[in-house]
């Protein structure tokens, strides 16, 4: 790798930030598999150094004008040149910092959560693998490198979801997640190839530059944009490929917090940011993205209304918030998507970690159960949970309000009002489903008249034994930090906008501030919380949601709009029993059959001919004579 040897510090920091988790992964996997303490320490140490480097890079380049790119020659094959290196600009540095901070906090949290689990060193190894893949994905200078780490992130999510592989449901969920994201990756790979064909190389800066738009016909540009958007749909669990995320909750809760809420699923949105100018050139792709974002946001919110498993609620809310970000980006508001991604990462991780503490102590995922077992007694987690839910709902002082407001303003600038109406309705639903579990846990109904415990999806208990109080504080400390972040991140809007704005992209519209939009947003948020209070918080409320009153709707949402049934039917009927059964029969009967048939045929003719030789002597003489006569006659033809 002919990289110009480290003269400046930035490159060293970038290298350290990305490669250290890889080293810890290799060291843990090869040498310290049997010493959990050492492997945990190793991976947290590596993560802390990468965190420091990420933060150092962030403030070192706070005022950078043009992006920094380092590229070393990695693989040359004929006309294709695949370099390996780093692309540092505000988009990637911000994301790098987000990933590093949340990764570090969750690794600390996991010390407490996973204590006593036999596979802890394997857990930390896979976590370091994920962090290496995610960090390198973020700073990838070319789509090749991004695609490579995109797949590696998918692999680590498979390994972490299926961490407790003894549970059949965990390995099943891991397989489902991997295949669905892989389907998206296939689309993305095709989109990449289309660009490669026309551009010659896949460096991101060149893709974003107008030069590409000049080379490709608009129709082809839209097609490749749509294909790459397919990859985003796969990774960020948008409309068609969304059902793997709620199943991914089988994994340990810190994994859900890190991967399936803030960082991994956000990779899709990050890719959108990364190629924003490229997407911007094809308006049809933007409208299609807008449609997909809205659809998945609404569907996910409706699913969150009915489910009883606390982690699944936050999983659905992640899908809907990602839908929000994509709507924001597709509406052309570049900074709104990026800012919402940052704030969402913080409060969603906080939500998961709080519910992790609850699950960890009471060993059940069901919100009614948690309520009855005295969830309210744990003061710190419940407080942070309320803050995070408030941010999710978009209540004013919290970060969620600012970032969601930006998105709504972006949508307001669009000509067609339907997107804005859908977004506002979504905001209302979000507020409602955010506070439903909070009130159920805070104001549990006594044993009498409780709706009998039945959970829509069979969520088996988390695999963790009771713990001493020392772990309590290990898990508590990250919560407080994250709660602080959700509180003050909202106020960092202006400096962040300035930081992101430096490389403001041409053609991005300025964002106006219609006043009535701000008030409607607040009213809807408070209205949602009030409705939730009405149905769950009040003393005499029956704790039955307005949706659960209509059984048909209830079942529809509980069954995830029958998407899972469709996929199950498709994989089982079409692929398994249909096409591959057809091919297998063809293989056995037609191809193999014909070859065995030929060989049996020769053996039969052999037997026939050998019988011919057993006749009387005189037949042989006759045969000789006749053949020679025939050969003689042949002369005349």
């Amino acid at each position: 790798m002919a990289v110009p040897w480290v003269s400046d510090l930035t490159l060293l920091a970038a290298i350290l930030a990305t490669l250290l988790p890889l080293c810890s992964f290799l060291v843990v996997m090869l040498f310290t598999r049997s010493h959990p303490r050492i492997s945990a320490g190793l991976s947290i140490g590596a993560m802390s150094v990468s965190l420091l480097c990420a933060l150092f890079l962030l403030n070192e380049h706070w005022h950078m004008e043009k992006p920094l790119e380092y590229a070393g020659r990695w693989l040359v094959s004929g006309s294709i040149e695949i370099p390996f290196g780093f692309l540092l600009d505000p988009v990637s540095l911000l994301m790098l910092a987000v990933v590093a901070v949340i990764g570090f906090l969750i690794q600390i949290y996991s010390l407490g959560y996973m204590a006593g689990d036999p596979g802890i060193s394997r857990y930390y190894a896979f976590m370091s693998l994920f962090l290496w893949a995610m960090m390198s994905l973020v700073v990838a200078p070319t789509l090749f490198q991004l695609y490579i780490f995109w797949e590696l992130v998918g692999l680590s999510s498979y390994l972490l979801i299926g961490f407790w592989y003894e549970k059949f449901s965990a390995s099943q969920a891991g397989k489902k997640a991997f295949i669905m994201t892989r389907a998206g990756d296939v689309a993305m790979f095709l989109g990449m190839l289309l660009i490669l064909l026309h551009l010659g190389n896949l460096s991101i800066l060149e893709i974003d530059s107008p030069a590409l738009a000049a080379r490709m016909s608009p129709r082809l540009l839209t097609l490749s944009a749509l294909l790459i958007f397919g990859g985003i749909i796969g990774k960020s669990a948008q409309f068609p490929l969304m059902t793997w995320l709620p199943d991914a909750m089988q994994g340990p809760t810190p994994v859900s917090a890190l991967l399936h809420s803030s960082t991994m699923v956000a990779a899709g949105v990050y890719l959108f940011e990364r190629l924003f100018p490229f997407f911007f050139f094809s308006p049809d792709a933007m409208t299609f993205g807008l449609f997909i974002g809205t659809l998945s946001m609404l569907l996910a919110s409706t699913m969150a209304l009915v489910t009883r498993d606390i982690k699944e609620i936050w999983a659905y809310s992640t899908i809907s918030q990602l839908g929000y970000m994509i709507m924001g980006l597709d509406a052309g508001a570049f900074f709104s998507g990026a800012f919402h991604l940052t704030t969402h990462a913080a409060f969603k991780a906080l939500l998961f970690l709080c519910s992790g503490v609850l699950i960890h102590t009471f060993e059940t995922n069901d919100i009614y159960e948690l309520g009855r077992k005295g969830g309210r007694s744990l003061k710190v987690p419940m407080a942070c949970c309320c803050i995070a839910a408030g941010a999710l709902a978009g209540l004013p002082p919290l970060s969620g309000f600012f970032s969601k407001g930006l998105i709504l303003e972006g949508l307001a600038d669009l000509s067609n009002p339907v997107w804005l109406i859908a977004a506002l309705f979504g905001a209302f639903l979000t507020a409602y489903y955010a506070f439903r579990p909070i009130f159920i846990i805070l104001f549990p109904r006594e044993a009498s008249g409780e709706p009998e415990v039945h959970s829509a999806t069979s969520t088996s208990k988390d695999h963790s034994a009771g713990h001493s109080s020392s772990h309590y504080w290990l898990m508590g400390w990250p919560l407080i930090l994250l709660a602080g972040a959700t509180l003050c991140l909202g106020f960092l809007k202006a400096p962040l906008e300035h930081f992101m704005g430096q490389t403001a992209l041409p053609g991005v519209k300025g964002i106006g501030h219609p006043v009535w939009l701000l008030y409607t947003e607040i009213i809807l948020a408070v209205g949602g919380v009030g409705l939730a209070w009405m149905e769950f918080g009040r003393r005499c409320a029956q704790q039955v949601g307005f949706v659960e009153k209509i059984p048909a709707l209830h079942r529809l949402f509980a069954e995830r709009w029958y998407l899972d049934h469709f996929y199950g039917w498709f994989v089982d009927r079409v692929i398994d029993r249909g096409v591959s059964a057809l091919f297998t029969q063809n293989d056995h009967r037609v191809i193999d059959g014909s070859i065995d048939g030929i060989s049996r045929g020769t053996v039969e003719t052999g037997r026939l001919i050998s019988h011919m030789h057993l006749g009387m002597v005189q037949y042989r003489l006759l045969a000789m004579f006749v053949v020679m006569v025939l050969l003689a006659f042949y002369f005349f033809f």
Partner: protein
Amino acid sequence: MKWMLFSPEIFYLLAALCFLLLSMTGRLHRRRDHHIALALAVAGVAVCVASLQLEGSLFSETYKIDLFSQVFKLLLSVGLALVVGICSELRGIQERYEHEVYLLLFPCTLATMLLVSSIHWLGVYVSLELSSYSLYILVALRKDWTQGIEAGLKYFLVGVFASAMMLFGMVILYGTTGTLDVKQLAQILPGLMSHAAVVVGLLLALSGFFFKLAVFPFHFWAADVYQGAAHQIAAYIATVSKVAAIAVLVRMVAMLGGSSDYFVHVLAVLSVVSMTVGNLAAIAQKDLKRLLAYSTVAHAGYVLIGILSMNPGGYAGAIFYAMAILVMKFTVFLVLVKVAWDGTNLEVDGLAGLHRRSPLLAMALMVALFSLAGLPPTVGFTGKFLIFTAAMERGHFALVLIAMINVVISLYYYLLMLRAAYLLEPQEQCSPLSLSAPIKLLAGALVVVMVAAGIFPRYLMDLARNAAQGLM
């Protein structure tokens, strides 16, 4: 010094006479006869080697001695020596007639030597009949008389019928051209090739050799004779008389073949049919010797490809293939004789457990089978390779393709034999085969020859090529 040219034949005549005297002494000394026969055979080989470089012609230009004939005489003498080598017990022959075996073997070899170098149709006919008749009797001497007599009769009837057809062919040739001397015919025939009578006559004339080589219409005797005859006699028929048939066919076609397409087509038809019939029939065989018979028919088909391509490469290929057949077939018969030492017929499954009973024989069988199948590092492959190259030079692509398909079919039953030897476990516990030192040496030497001729075929090929030059 003319008689020096004739020395191999004279030697074998004297040997035959000596055995005639011995057979008249009455009492049977099996060991003594065997030792004398072995000594005489080896001496015969020495004489042939000595006379290898001789050139000249005898009996007023009807008996040609050149490298071609001398090489084949050497091959025939080596074949005889090998066959005599495995005649130590001769359990397959009735005790009373054991004298006659050597008495008839030596004249038969003498006849084949005469056949090889005579270039006058009458000489060819007489020597062919002499060798056939001695073989008819040898086949009939089997201890189990029912098999022996049936095989002898069938062999006799088919043989005599074929020689009658050959004679008629000769007559037509003589009638239309006026001469029986092959050298003169070689000048006259190219002009007359358009006449039906001449070509049919030539074809009928060759039918005698087709019978000897067991080519398609004349191969009906092969299966029954191999099964009916004693193992040693079957070995002799499979090796020595095949080599002689190839020799005389090559000489006749080389000198008389000429340019007529019809003749090439007929030979091609015969070769394809005999290949296919031989291979297909061999698949369904249970008895080992019957299977070997059909495989010989198939090999006759392969040799015919070499002969019909009518170029020096083709003839050299046929000569090389003759050498290969001699070694390959003899090795399989050596294994057969040692496994079925009591002279009874052996089933293919009778080879069961051979790898345990005697690893050396099993290895020899494996190498021989792969060589018969024509797999590379062995002499069989080089033979086939030369023949196919020659055929390809004449543009017979389809013929080569059919031949290769036949090779694959033949591999099936060779692998079945290998399976029997290496995989099957014998039902009753058979004792390990104890081989005498010379036999072990012979088996090892054969394996070495087969593999060495496959890997370094250069010298043998040059010998065959020079022999083929002399023909034109």
